[in-house]
């Protein structure tokens, strides 16, 4: 059976619904020895800031049961270097380019959006959910008004499709998503990491130099699937789902719950071919289950008791 794995998000057509998650895939080139970048739908690049950032002290990672905690703290070469050095490289491939931006202030977001507006990127992912920086970012993402403010400002600053990346560290993620939609977001992506801490009982100190970090990986998957479903039910813009995806089966959970596309993050560290393996696996699932179009699976969850 011929199956169509293409998905259209805010007018951008991805060859398949698998996108590499921001912060785990560098600028794509690092994985090019392992994955044919033409074979994955998109790449969300490392979170960018207006100025280059050195990030937090090390250690920046800890392994937890079925998860990891990271506190990279947005180390990146800055948006200008990204435009200069990375976009031309990525443009060689079919994969779509998602620029992930994180600001300390609303004007940071505006300035970055303006700089990226006339570049070759496909979607702007507005990160209001990084738990590892002291100022801005997550502070915006935990309230409806903060998300609305950033979304509105970025919406004005660019003609590119914008996707707001939401934090799970909230009581009601569906309302937060609604406030992004109301201010003109073309899509939302979720979940970013859940704030966590691991303590070394011998030194009596947190393992991470930054004390806390963001939890990701399979451990968070049930939480992420639930949140994707809540957001899907409340908004009418596309939802990009992530959190602990390791396999096609995991990806399909998110798609059934309402995701139009999914992202793979942490699992790239375990399996550098994770993104293309998941894409292949989705195709096989479609073939086995006679699903002609992957977008027909989105939201096809059947609730019990209905």
């Amino acid at each position, binding site marked *: 059976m011929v199956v169509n794995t293409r998905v259209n998000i805010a007018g951008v057509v991805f060859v398949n619904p698998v996108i590499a998650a921001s*912060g*785990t*895939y*560098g600028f794509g080139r*690092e*994985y090019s*020895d*392992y994955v044919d970048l033409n074979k994955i739908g998109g790449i969300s690049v*490392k979170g960018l800031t207006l100025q280059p950032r*050195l*990030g937090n002290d*090390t*250690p*920046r*990672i*800890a*392994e937890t049961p*079925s*998860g*990891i905690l*990271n506190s*990279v703290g947005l*180390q*990146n070469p800055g948006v200008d270097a990204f435009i200069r050095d990375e976009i031309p490289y990525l443009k060689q491939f079919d994969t779509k380019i998602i620029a992930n931006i994180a600001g300390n202030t609303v004007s940071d977001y505006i300035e970055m959006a303006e700089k990226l507006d006339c570049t070759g990127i496909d979607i702007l992912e507005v990160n209001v959910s990084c738990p590892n920086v002291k100022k801005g970012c997550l502070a915006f993402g935990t309230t409806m008004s903060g998300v609305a403010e950033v979304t509105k400002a970025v919406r004005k600053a660019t003609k590119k499709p914008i996707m707001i990346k939401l934090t799970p560290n909230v009581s009601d993620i569906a309302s937060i998503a609604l406030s992004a939609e109301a201010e003109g977001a073309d899509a939302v992506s979720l979940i970013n990491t859940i704030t966590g801490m691991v303590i070394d009982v011998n030194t009596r100190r947190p393992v991470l130099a930054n004390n806390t970090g963001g939890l990701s*990986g*399979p451990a968070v998957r049930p939480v992420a699937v639930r949140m994707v479903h809540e957001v899907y039910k409340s908004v009418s813009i596309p939802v990009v789902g992530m959190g602990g995806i390791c396999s096609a089966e995991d990806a399909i959970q998110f798609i059934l719950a309402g995701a139009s596309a999914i992202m793979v993050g*942490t*699992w*790239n*560290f*375990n*399996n*550098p*071919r994770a993104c293309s393996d998941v894409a292949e696996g989705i195709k096989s699932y479609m073939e086995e289950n006679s699903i002609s179009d992957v977008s027909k699976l989105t939201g096809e969850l059947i609730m019990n008791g209905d």
Partner: protein
Amino acid sequence: MNLNALVISNEILCKNNMLMRLFVPDIAAKAKPGQFLNIICSSDNKLILRRPISIMDADAEKGCVDIGYEIRGEGTMLLAEQKKGAKIDVMGPLGNGFCIDDNFSNIAIVGGGIGIYPLYFLAKSLGECNIDVFMGYQCAGKVILEDEFKTEGCNVYLSTDDGSRGHSGFITELFSKTYKPGRYDMIFVCGPEIMSRKVVLMVRSNGERSQVSLEERMGCGIGACLVCSCEVKTAEGIGRKTVCKDGPVFNGDIVFPEVD
């Protein structure tokens, strides 16, 4: 999982230390001293992160790579349980290794603990040099690779923290007694940070060259996630490089930038 490496043997080397021989021809053919493997230790993926372990030796003809490792936590413990015949998932060779110059004639190698493993492959690759190897251990029971270095024609200087073998105290003491500016063309260093820092700074303060292999906790192992950053001197001041891709081996001139 990409079970590309076959365990040929996995044996106790000394207390808590194991020597594993892998049949993994692709990697053996490319491996250079100072590079490392990134290994899935648990067969059921219980642990998400790979564990970085240096290449201790590689034989391109036989397709074999040796690694030596200490059992420290769950990952290395699971690795130690792998039996002959098992297949494991290994990425490599990763990172930038040591730079070897054909003109080297007098070399010092300073290693501490598990840092000694990658230095063996280095010593074997140095050719016809005169090599002084300074190796520090916790105790006599943990002395590794002594004979192997001797077989390679190295002059071995030994210390143990508790004095149970060789010089009693830190290897840096033994090294600083021997070291004189001009004596070595290059000084290679790998070990605990405190040791590496001491040696590198000593050498640097004399305007001489060293190469040091650093350790840092890793995520991806290939330069993508920036988890393994270390500080280095750059034109603009202090910058950061990845231990996994830019390193693990760095020029002694740029590391530990906060000190000068």
